[in-house]
């Protein structure tokens, strides 16, 4: 965890905190500031993973959250507080047992984080069709697009959409039965922000191939077949203009991953 910012202040002496008649007051004050920050962070992580909390239950999830917030570093943007939860869980002694009990948990955590990123993503200027066309005819560095920083791609052998629907129903009191989960064929989804919402769709193999190509474009391997899904990708806003400098945290957001 980051150092307590109040340690930046001189706590004693002429420029320190004013002494109080009650010796307990200073310690209480420091603990209030500390708990304020920790509480805000726990709340932010909790809001990122509501379905995981529903799945594991508060008695298991809350202590896990507390330990994570205590150990992980504090990001600049509060909404990124839950970014490393899956990675952190894997490194915990109890991680293997947890993932044995809930083998689809890594996929669920990725799904929730992808939606959280899309929900909180900033606005980006869309990539221009004309500039993309021009680049495709005369490739040069760099291309006029980049993948939307809040576009996430995830794959799983578990029926993630059904798991999410059931957990959502349970959390809203619309269902009482638990989950019956079986592995199946691997499927791949894209999660991305739209102007007024978030969206999710299964990826076709052609879309997936094109996304892989677009990330580090290699003009030599360009084929018309490879680029056939491009209009749909542009329409969905998966490509944004490279010259957009507004988002400060775009590096933190590069969340395009395949699992």
């Amino acid at each position, binding site marked *: 965890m980051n150092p307590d*910012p109040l340690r930046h202040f001189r706590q004693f002496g002429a420029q320190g905190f004013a002494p*109080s008649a009650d010796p307990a*007051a200073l310690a209480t004050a420091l603990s209030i500031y500390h708990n304020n920050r920790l509480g805000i962070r726990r709340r932010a992580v909790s809001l990122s993973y509501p379905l995981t909390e529903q799945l594991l239950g508060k008695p298991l999830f809350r202590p896990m959250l507390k330990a994570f917030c205590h150990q992980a570093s504090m990001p600049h943007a509060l909404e990124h507080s839950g970014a490393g939860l899956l990675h952190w869980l894997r490194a915990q002694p109890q991680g293997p047992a947890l993932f044995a009990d809930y083998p689809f948990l890594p996929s669920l955590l990725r799904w929730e984080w992808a939606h959280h990123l899309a929900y*909180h993503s*900033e606005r980006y200027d869309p990539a221009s069709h004309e500039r993309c066309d021009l680049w495709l005819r005369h490739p040069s560095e760099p291309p006029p697009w980049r993948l939307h920083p809040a576009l996430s791609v995830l794959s799983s052998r578990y029926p993630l959409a059904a798991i999410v629907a059931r957990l959502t129903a349970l959390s809203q009191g619309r269902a009482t039965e638990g989950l019956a989960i079986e592995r199946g064929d691997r499927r791949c989804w894209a999660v991305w922000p739209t102007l007024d919402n978030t969206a999710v769709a299964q990826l076709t193999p052609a879309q997936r191939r094109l996304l892989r190509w677009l990330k580090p474009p290699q003009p030599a391997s360009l084929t018309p077949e490879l680029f056939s899904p491009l209009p749909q990708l542009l329409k969905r806003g998966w490509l944004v203009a490279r010259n957009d400098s507004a988002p400060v945290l775009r590096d933190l957001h590069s969340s395009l991953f395949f699992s």
Partner: protein
Amino acid sequence: MRALPPHASISLRETHLAQLLAQRPPLPFIEVVADNFLALRGPHYAGLRQLSEHYPILLHCVGFSFGSAQPPAPDYTRKVATMAQELGALNVTDHLSLSALNDEFIHDLLPIRYHPDSLQALCDNLSRVQEALPVPLLLENPSRYLAYADDEMSEGNMMTKLVQRTGIGVLMDINNLYVTGHNLGLCPQAMLADYPQEAIDLYHLAGHHAQPPLLVDSHSAAICPEVWQLYEYAITQIGPRPTIIEWDNQLPPLPTLIEQAQLAQAYLQAAPVLDGTTS
């Protein structure tokens, strides 16, 4: 600033957004915590834009960190200014405190030194933000849990100097005044007397809880009788001003918040008419 009527309303929490949009209770204006909508897109921001078609919006912030040695983050200022423009907000408010240290954002409102040496940096930061915003900036008194041994000015004197030098307005949080007074052994009424009362444009009210020997500004409960009394006193001394009820933790149903606003409204309506004040 477009003159707001001295009425009482609520600070929106996202949990209540859909209900507010569906029911549209008669409220004179609504405060919004800008930091929760900085994406400037998405379903929550779309809802907020709809809300702004029905209610005047006041933007409340926690991220300018006016007490920092560094200027407020330009990206943050730009986003708040854009939001103010897009929602037609009437003002922007933030605290006399510190929430960034050495470029690290703290997500808390830490106390600053009330010392003449702090004034110039504060004025620079306030002026920079005021220039960037399309609407007036109001500065709020924070809750303090500790003071510094070398504090040389009262909170009210600090605010007076800042108002004189920058022309900003003041958001007087009555609960913060009460909590700070209790925690630092000060009389809230005497603290209030030090403030530039003519610059107070808005009141905040909220609940707190006890963590002996201190009080915690937790926004987790109904407003207590002592804070209502202090509110009544402030109205008597300063005059009725637009008032916002804040509630963050253990958030109650929307009607409970609106009931608190109606209570505040009753105090405003019962206020005596002061010279130069319309109630």
